[in-house]
């Protein structure tokens, strides 16, 4: 039972990714990409990694994708943009993503209420993740902090460059 739920989530992830790649409209592609990330989160959950599943939703489907959508929408300001937006988000566009998301919702509901156990046989709780990260992998956390610093400083420098340019013009 658990396995069949897992493969169904895998199928949803695969379908959503293929649809996302084949859309010509960036907004539609993003909607499918979000579905794909949600499906991957469900797969993580079924495998017994609820923490990874939550991160997948919070970080990828949540923060990063919302940022994407904002940027795309912000590029289309004005009356014409509004018109185009309404056209993009026409109801029939939502049918397939809603269906895919519904499958995931039903799966989640089943997994939480009806079935216990995981496909991998082990459950990794958030507590265990924390203990590992700040136990044997403490140095990895430290190195990752340096990595973030490098990314931040680099982004600051490159971003400043484009701000300067827009001020000049």
């Amino acid at each position, binding site marked *: 039972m658990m396995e069949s739920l897992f493969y169904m989530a895998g199928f949803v992830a695969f379908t959503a990714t293929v649809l996302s790649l084949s859309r010509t409209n960036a907004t539609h592609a993003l909607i499918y990409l979000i579905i794909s990330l949600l499906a991957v989160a469900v797969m993580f959950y079924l495998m017994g990694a609820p923490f990874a599943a939550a991160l997948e939703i919070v970080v990828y489907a949540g923060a990063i994708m919302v940022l994407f959508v904002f940027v795309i929408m912000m590029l289309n300001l004005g009356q014409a943009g509004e018109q185009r937006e309404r056209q993009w988000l026409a109801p029939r566009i939502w049918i397939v993503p809603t269906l895919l998301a519904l499958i995931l919702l039903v799966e989640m509901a089943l997994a939480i209420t009806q079935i216990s156990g995981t496909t991998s046989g082990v459950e990794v709780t958030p507590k265990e993740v924390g203990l590992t990260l700040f136990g044997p992998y*403490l*140095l*990895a956390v430290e190195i990752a902090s*340096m*990595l973030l*610093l*490098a*990314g931040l*400083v680099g982004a600051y*420098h490159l971003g400043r460059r484009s701000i300067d340019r827009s001020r000049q013009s």
Partner: protein
Amino acid sequence: MNLAAMQGLLPLLVLGLGAAVLMLQISIRRQLGWSYAITVATLLLGAAAMEPAMQVAPLQVTPLLRVDNLGLFFGSLFCLSGAVTAVISRDYLRSREGENEEYFLLLLLSTLGAVILAYSTHVAALLLGLELLSVALYALIAYPERGTLPLEAAIKYLVLSGAASATLLFGFALIYAALGSLEYAEIAVQISAGRAATSPALILMGAAMVFAGLGFKLSVVPFHMWTPDVYEGAPAPISGFLAGVSKGAVFIAVLRWFLESGFFQYSSLLAGITLLSIASILVGNLLALLQTNVKRILAYSSIAHLGYLLIVLVAAGVSPEPGLAVEAGGYYVVAYVITTLAAFSLLGLISRQSGDREYDQLSDLAGLFWKQPGLAALFTVALLSLAGIPLTAGFIGKFYLISAGVDAALWGLLAALVIGSAIGIFYYLRIIYTMTTVGEQANPGTTADMLVGSRLVVYLLIFAMLYLGIVPEPLMGYLRTIL
């Protein structure tokens, strides 16, 4: 983590602390001189911290890193190379206004990544080190505020490097699926325990993907497409760092990965590496013949040199006693890093007042011998060393490689090495010839305003290349004791 572990990690701690101090300094008051001084001091201290760390080596610190002589030696080599890059960059940045303090911060972080790579004995450490090295480099490549060439180079590097990291991760995931471990030593145990036999295809595929991902960073043919464009677009000191330190660090990581996780028993993997090596040597050298841009020539030459270095991997895998091959690899990396830094340092130094463009065309070097003899001498020694002419570090490195290859009876690879070196001599000598011609040249050409630090570094690099070529015995003996 106890005191011994702290002592072992001292080089990393020094670099991390230096980065934090530098960041605070920039946020309190922007002053290029201070940033420069902190960076160079940190890197030199990081190199010197090898001494106390060596007293506790070998020591495994958490599953991620191991403090041993190999890692410490190359870690300090990368620190020193970072310091050389910083000194050259100071001269290079003088005429390029803007907020240049972050440049040094990124350079420090990038060096930290390289040192972590030299220490890593776990897939997670390898990946984090690699990403730290690369992420800082993306920004450094795109650092110049004017011109689109650096941006183009950075985006090329970013996209392709991201794809390479994804390939690498996927490979590790396959190996993890088959063996259930991410630690090198544990992987070796699992392979020798016969657990690999249940899914050989998975492991082989994983190992091939890992090698492809790392091969991109090493710019081995056919993953080399980005190299000339990125080197051409990046500021000259950063091209040197990219070619020398980044490749050297990744090679050391690859060497460790292969030696410690027991992948040498897969003969098809070795056959693949042999093919890549021959292709790199021939393609790199042949394409270098067609270039008129010195940075592109050096880029193709670095592709060829990495092809030579891959011989070490094959030799270590084939021969029952990998000691000689590893030793040859160590020596070659040292010689290659120093020589590459020297060659790109020259390009950085002659471009120090060139404004938006760099003097990197072959014609820009015309008459350099008569106008800036000291720099021309540096470049000549570096080119001779790259070509493998006796009395330079490159010659001994190549000699070492050939003896390791003969020891393992790799005749095909050796033939490629000889042919490649013969082609190489032509384009290296062509640059030297151009420097001696008396021609019209755009380069204002005076060494009078060079900073003291840069002068010192130029002399040091010339000395190091000649010393390693004339008296190789001390380094050889040292490498023999630590490997």
